[in-house]
């Protein structure tokens, strides 16, 4: 511990390689900044965080110093309030305002703008600049991010995030002097699948959320709630915002162990499926459906995209013996295998923070950028951080001096090895990226487990090695081999999972929907699209007398149903989801469902003829051994702070009494919420609620997302109070399931091995309904290796796999192993990898 004197007040702090800005902010002091970002660290460009630093107690003059570039040391003396520092900080704002337009009233950032906040904080109010402002042309950056360059204050955060942190190439600093321009060489969609974070990284309105812009609402008019991303198995924490029944946007909700400061674009922009006009909204008569339940055998299929509570309610309705997992057979078996492998592994699955801190990585069979994108962003940090740490130690560069560390490191990466059939977006940070068929990937894993080869040697030297595999390869052999390698190396083991509650559904230990008996009279499908899961879905459904579908998506199964009960989306429902780590987390209703739409668990309880609160559903669930402790994921509904609930609406929400005055001059009654400690109101506890209940980040003077500083134990650190989520997955439970290396992959003359290809945009069914995501979804194409591509050209080719026949154009993935081709998932219900045939190409070939 060290003592630092700020304006002659002693503060006890832990310097720990931190700079003075981080120390001041962590102490709760207000010091304005722009170019520093807790995840991007310091570069000293904006000069906004100037303080006066004194040599010692005898130094009365001191020296203007940038807090973000100065390491905190014991005995340091500095002043934030020295008039010279105050004046200089105001003059920085004055300079930034030279060219910043006065367009706050029409700017999407207005009301949650870091530049506005910092301007007010410095007290700069008077404009002396009397000349024209410079203007720029804006670019069309695609359907997700809006570009308004005139507002730019050139903090360089965008390019530092986009290029240095996220590995993007197409956004750059262009131009020179006061004409620096942050954009692409030409108009075009940003290539990085993490581009949406620019919206939050940008301290003003240069990069804004284009989807929000189409149905714009000020931050202070958004009703928000703590929520979770439902578009893959990572479990990123989000803050969706709603007004007038329309979900307007999703923002990142900091979770120190998982998503930190960043989301992927699927997670940020997938939300618009909630607003989809095609959503089922008209309910069948529940009494009729209830009548069907006594007609004969009833079975139900739960869903990996439904909450634990919804699945539990279905299980209670149909009985444990009639409860099936609505998952394709191969995926069901693979997820069960991965769960079993995780439970016997000596260490728990790593959080994303632990992934970032790994110092050696083995990635087997998986392209996480397209399966669990946020994990890929974490893995990129794992590749870059160890050399930076080493260079910092050797050259005595403090850990926050980002530019100097990156300069010292150049292109060096940690031991990071990739073995996949197809090229991955992480190849660029890998020491080696091998292109192998899945069975050969598995063989490599087993060889590493046996200590053979240089990869094994490199991983063995690591302090914090990590092995990553997952559902993306579709290969149980790869999962087995990954677990064997991780165990042999003493590494952490991370499996990717496809859906937001894949692991949660797996914990019910239900058989897969394919094993459902054929004599079912009434089939209840909870958020399960049978056509996506089973090749013979149509035949099966035809045999069932009553098909009851509960869903929030307009799927082919909904179209084939005898009765549809429209369910609430994540934004209109409470629920607990279990992520890839086995961490159960709660999401809360952002806004109440309207019309016939009800939360799935409420429909199912209604069919069963019971009325329970959400907490009662969770309590019943917790009685199952696998879910013991699940109630700890979030406080119970009766939780109150100073006797008050947590308001979902900010205290500045406008028009509370006026908006509906055309209907009724009385203030509308707020909808009750018996299921959570949150209220659909602006009234309630105005302080900081516990982390799992935090609906927004706001503090006096801090209207942007960066108010987060005030909610953290220290900047960049965990949120104040109890962490969110509880771990349900046991670890180190016993014997390792036997696994043996498969024989080497043998290409066949008469067939091609079709491998699954996932894409961040389009492979996940919920987000695929969001217009922004749909616009970026690539047209389906079959990827083939160089030789095949040379022979067949651009196609089209006819693909036969199982009973499915598909006609597809070709694209080239030059290093793809001979004898394989990569087929986008979701085009057919056949399990991949699978052998099939490929015919076509130029007629004369």
């Amino acid at each position: 511990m060290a003592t630092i004197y700020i304006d002659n007040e002693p503060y006890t702090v832990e310097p720990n390689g931190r700079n003075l800005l981080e120390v001041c902010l962590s102490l709760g002091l207000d010091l304005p900044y722009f170019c520093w970002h807790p995840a991007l660290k310091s570069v000293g460009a904006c000069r906004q965080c100037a303080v006066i630093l004194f040599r010692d107690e005898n130094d009365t003059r001191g020296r203007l110093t940038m807090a973000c570039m100065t390491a905190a040391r014991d005995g340091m003396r500095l002043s934030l309030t020295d008039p010279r520092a105050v004046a200089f900080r105001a003059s920085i704002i004055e300079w930034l305002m030279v060219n910043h337009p006065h367009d706050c009233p029409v700017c999407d950032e207005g009301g949650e703008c870091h530049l506005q906040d910092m301007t007010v904080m410095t007290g700069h109010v008077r404009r002396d600049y009397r000349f024209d402002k410079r203007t720029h042309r804006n670019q069309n950056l695609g359907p997700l991010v809006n570009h308004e360059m005139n507002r730019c204050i050139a903090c360089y955060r965008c390019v530092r995030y986009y290029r240095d942190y996220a590995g993007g190439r197409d956004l750059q600093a262009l131009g020179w002097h006061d004409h620096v321009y942050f954009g692409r060489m030409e108009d075009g969609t940003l290539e990085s699948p993490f581009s949406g974070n620019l919206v939050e990284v940008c301290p003003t309105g240069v990069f804004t959320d284009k989807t929000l812009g189409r149905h714009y609402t000020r931050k202070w008019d958004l009703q928000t709630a703590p929520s979770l991303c439902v578009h893959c198995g990572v479990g990123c924490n989000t803050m969706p915002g709603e007004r007038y029944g329309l979900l307007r946007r999703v923002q990142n909700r900091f979770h120190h162990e998982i998503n930190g400061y960043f989301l992927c674009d699927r997670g940020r922009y997938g939300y618009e499926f909630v607003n989809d006009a095609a959503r089922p909204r008209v309910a069948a008569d529940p009494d009729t459906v209830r009548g069907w339940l006594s007609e004969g055998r009833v079975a139900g299929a739960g869903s990996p995209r439904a909450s634990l509570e919804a699945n539990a309610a279905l299980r209670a309705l149909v009985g444990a013996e009639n409860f099936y997992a609505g998952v394709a057979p191969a995926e069901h078996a693979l997820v069960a295998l991965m769960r079993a492998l995780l439970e016997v592994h000596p260490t728990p699955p790593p959080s994303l923070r632990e992934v970032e801190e790994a110092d050696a990585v083995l990635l087997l069979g998986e392209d996480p950028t397209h399966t669990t994108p946020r994990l890929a962003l974490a893995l990129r940090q794992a590749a870059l951080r160890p050399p930076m740490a080493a260079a910092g130690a050797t050259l005595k560069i403090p850990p926050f001096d980002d530019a100097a560390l990156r300069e010292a490191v150049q292109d060096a990466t940690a031991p990071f090895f990739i073995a996949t059939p197809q090229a991955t977006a992480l190849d660029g940070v890998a020491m080696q990226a091998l292109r192998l068929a899945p069975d050969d990937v598995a063989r490599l894993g087993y060889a590493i487990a046996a200590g053979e080869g240089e990869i094994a040697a490199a991983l063995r030297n690591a302090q914090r090695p990590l092995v990553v595999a997952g559902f993306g390869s579709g290969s149980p052999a790869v999962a087995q081999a990954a677990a064997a390698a991780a165990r042999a190396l003493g590494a952490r083991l991370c499996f990717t999972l496809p859906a937001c509650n894949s692991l949660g559904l797996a914990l019910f230990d239900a058989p897969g929907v394919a094993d459902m008996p054929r004599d079912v009279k009434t089939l209840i499908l909870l958020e399960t699209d049978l056509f996506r899961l089973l090749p013979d879905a149509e035949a099966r459904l035809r045999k069932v007398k009553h098909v009851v579908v509960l869903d929030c998506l307009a799927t082919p199964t909904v179209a084939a149903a005898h009765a549809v009960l429209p369910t609430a989306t994540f934004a209109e429902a409470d629920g607990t989801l279990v992520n890839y780590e086995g961490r159960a987390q709660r999401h809360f209703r952002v806004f109440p469902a309207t019309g016939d739409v009800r939360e799935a668990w409420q429909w199912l309880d209604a069919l069963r003829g019971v009325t329970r609160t959400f907490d009662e559903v969770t309590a019943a669930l917790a009685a199952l051994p696998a879910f013991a402790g699940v109630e700890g994921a979030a406080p119970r509904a009766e939780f109150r702070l100073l006797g008050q609930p947590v308001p979902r609406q900010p205290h500045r929400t406008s028009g509370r009494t006026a908006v509906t005055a055309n209907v009724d001059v009385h203030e509308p009654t707020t909808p009750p919420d018996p299921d959570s400690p949150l209220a659909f109101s602006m009234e309630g506890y105005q302080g900081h609620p516990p982390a799992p209940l935090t609906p927004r980040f706001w503090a006096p003077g801090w209207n942007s997302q960066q108010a987060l500083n005030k909610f953290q134990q220290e900047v960049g650190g965990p949120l104040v109070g109890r962490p969110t989520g509880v771990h349900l997955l046991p670890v180190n439970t016993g014997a390792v399931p036997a696994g043996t290396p498969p024989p080497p992959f043998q290409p066949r003359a008469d067939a091609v091995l079709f491998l699954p290809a996932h894409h961040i945009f389009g492979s996940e069914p919920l987000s695929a309904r969001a217009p922004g995501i749909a616009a970026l979804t690539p047209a389906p194409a079959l990827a083939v290796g160089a030789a095949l591509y040379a022979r067949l050209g651009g196609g089209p080719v006819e693909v036969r796999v199982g009973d499915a026949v598909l006609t597809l154009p070709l694209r080239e993935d030059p290093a793809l192993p001979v004898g394989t081709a990569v087929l986008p998932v979701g085009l057919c219900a056949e399990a991949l990898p699978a052998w099939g045939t490929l015919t076509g190409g130029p007629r004369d070939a």
Partner: protein
Amino acid sequence: MTDRPLTALIKPERAPLSLAEYEHAGGYAGLRRALTLTPAEVTTEVTKSTLRGRGGAGFPTGNKWSLVPAVDGRKYVVVNADEMEPGTMKDRLLLEGNPHQTVEGAIITAYAVGAQTAYIFLRWGYQLAEARVAQAIADAYAAGYLGERILGTDFSLQLYLHMSAGRYMCGEETALLNALEGKRANPRSKPPFPPVSGLFGRPTIVNNAETVSNVPHILRNGWEWFTKLSSGADGGTKLFGASGRVRTPGVWERPMGTPLREIFADCAGGMAPGYAFRALLPGGASTGFLTEDAFDTPLDFTSVEKAGSRLGTGTMIVLDDKTCPVGMQYSLQRFFARESCGWCTPCREGLPWVARTLEALEAGDGEARDLDVLDAHVHGLAMGNTFCALAPGAMAPLESALKLFRADFERHISEKRCPWT
């Protein structure tokens, strides 16, 4: 032995010496001697010579070399020939006049610091120098002064000529390194300094072309000879220059510490007929004005600083009575504003404001508060407030102009015009 080693072999009326002529005149003897010494001994020789960097900052050259850590692996030497300071043309004389001298200096420097690769980073506009330096490098390779196992020793060096894309900012050594790496020419935060983490993050010595050109002579003639070239504390000679309405503008080599009056009156011949002297910037555009009071100042780093300015590049810009001092400032500040890299706020936004204010004054559009704006920038763009020295350098002439020529600035405002037009 000459007392003007840098320019003795330069004959402006003819092409530079060929390799054979250069060798005949004693060229590469310094390198030959250096290779008989250990690298540490070469560094010691240069340290004892009291050679200080000629790019403007005046850092002791031998001390800089000794900051290179004794680590294995790649090290670099970069010759900073990105001479773009307004009014400065001294490196041009050396590179066009006797390129082998600079090449030889670069080789010795690389030997002393253990570099395997060296670059000459040349200003884009110096196309004649480009051709001559390229020829000198090619000749040196052919003669075995460059390449593998130089002169039969274990020392190998690759020397490349890099033509800059043409930015003043690249004169700042860390911006130069970024540019050489193919990045934006933004300066870097220091520490770490280039001797520790420079080009491609490796130990790197960046020396000015004139600095490097002194090195062969120090090695050939010994450090004592070098210190005796001047009478002051800083050894050696210096290229001094003068531009503006002087009788004979030019560049001359004189002992370090030569009085200002000698350069102005004897070398430059005083003011051209019909022009009266008002003040001069002693070391290029980013130094403050000196007046006639300072004519006895010895031109060395310490003395010029005592007189209230900086030696800078040693090439003076003379202001006469027929040139508007505000217009001169406008010209300079427009240059600095254009050359700001755009990295830090005060420089990026402040310099254009200054330039536009001066433009308004010149156009007769001045307002009383404009002088407050200029004063505020002189104060606000001080060293330490900005990321690098560009903006503080730009403020040096403005600050002194606002003091010396206050009345002229005020006349622009009160008369609503430039009195010189």
